[in-house]
């Protein structure tokens, strides 16, 4: 109870864009919770502005973006841009969902650290976050 480090990794799990499928996001949120992290789930249909505001207000260390609609090439870079505008440079941003291999290099170039496609074992995501949180 006392003297234990109570530092926690805080993660925002966000669903930008208009697809209504959040089963994957919820499963990842649950896995991160079970790994001892504090997970803030935004709910569906977030604009990039809403995602960035929530990340700032909640002082998260990690943002996990889930997207299945195909709009990642527009939404991810916009979120990265807004984070930059807010001066947020110490947050790890990762993504998941239906994202074609060919799109990944461009997303990484704009600052998304890693993309986890379908079938990624949950432990891989947990380990990645634990190792790379800034």
């Amino acid at each position, binding site marked *: 109870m*006392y003297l234990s480090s109570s530092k926690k990794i805080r993660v925002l799990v966000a669903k930008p864009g208009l697809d209504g499928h959040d089963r994957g996001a919820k499963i990842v949120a649950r896995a991160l919770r*079970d790994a001892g992290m504090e997970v*803030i789930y935004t709910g569906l249909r977030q604009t990039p502005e809403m995602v960035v*505001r929530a990340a700032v207000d909640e002082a998260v260390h990690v943002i996990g973006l889930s997207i299945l609609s195909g709009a990642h090439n527009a939404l991810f870079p916009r979120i990265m841009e807004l984070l930059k505008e807010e001066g947020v440079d*110490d947050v790890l941003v990762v993504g998941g969902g239906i994202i074609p291999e060919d799109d990944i290099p461009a997303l990484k170039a704009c600052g998304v650290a890693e993309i986890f496609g379908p079938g990624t074992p949950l432990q891989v995501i947990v380990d990645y976050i634990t190792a790379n949180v800034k």
Partner: protein
Amino acid sequence: MGDLTLSAEKLVKGVLQGNRRDLARLISLIEDEDPSADEALSSLYKHTGKSLIVGVTGPPGSGKSTLVTRITAEYRRREKTVGIICVDPSSPFTGGALLGDRIRMQEHSLDKDVYVRSMGTRGHLGGLSRHTSDAVRVVDAFGKDIIIVETVGAGQSEVEIIEVAHTVIVADVPGAGDDIQAIKAGIMEIADIFVVNKSDLAGADKKVTEINAMLDIDQNMGAWRPPVLLTNARTGEGIEELVDKIGEHHTYLTESGDFAERGLKRSKDELEQLMEYKLTLELLKKLRGTSEYEEAIQKISERKDDPYSVAERLIARFLTDQRE
């Protein structure tokens, strides 16, 4: 996690200047029990005491988050700025938490005059986290007119909210529990305002009657009789009246002198809790890891010694050591 190593002094300055990123980071510093957190709280203290703090509690699923959203919207309509702190439970096994109250608060997510912060209980019981009251204080210094604190889904004894809020709203729903539940001790005693939410469900009027019947036989009631309001947080019905009642309660507190009295009691409780915590911390810092301490624990578990006399002995020695 380098963002938290910023100096507390800089964060305090940022909070007072209205920088919400610094506000968020300072709350994290406090939650993580960073050694510099106390220093920050200490320098912020004189800037606090200006916000009206409203607590919202009630069983899981009674619509607390939606109610908070609606109350916020009504305060925004009245041109008040609002801070919201929502507490959700942390897992007792992993320490992790899924904080989901924001989901219901979308409509305020881009309003710069609303700040929303989620907190996990991190092992603390009582309906709040250990540092919720500190977080409230930081938001107070940040300059929000109203601060709404939403507790975890509360059962019967999560009553810590009374130590934090000026006005406590207990939300209940139709159909849960009978009239005996209503006269049990605990959460039903702490309400300044009762809300029967989901008023479109069958049994809403009956619930209002039951709560009123409980209030009728309350011998200890002061001059403020908690009103029992029907709301439908989904449609917004009853919310305007609820916010009016919060205002009336505030006026009552100020005029009756309860405000000053509660403030004094709160200061005393807080000082004593803080001293208890710090003393325990100092004591354990000395004891933990020493072979004598481990042996004493071993002996207690083997029934060769008992925790009562060991505790007394260790504390007595700690106090003597301090004197020297």
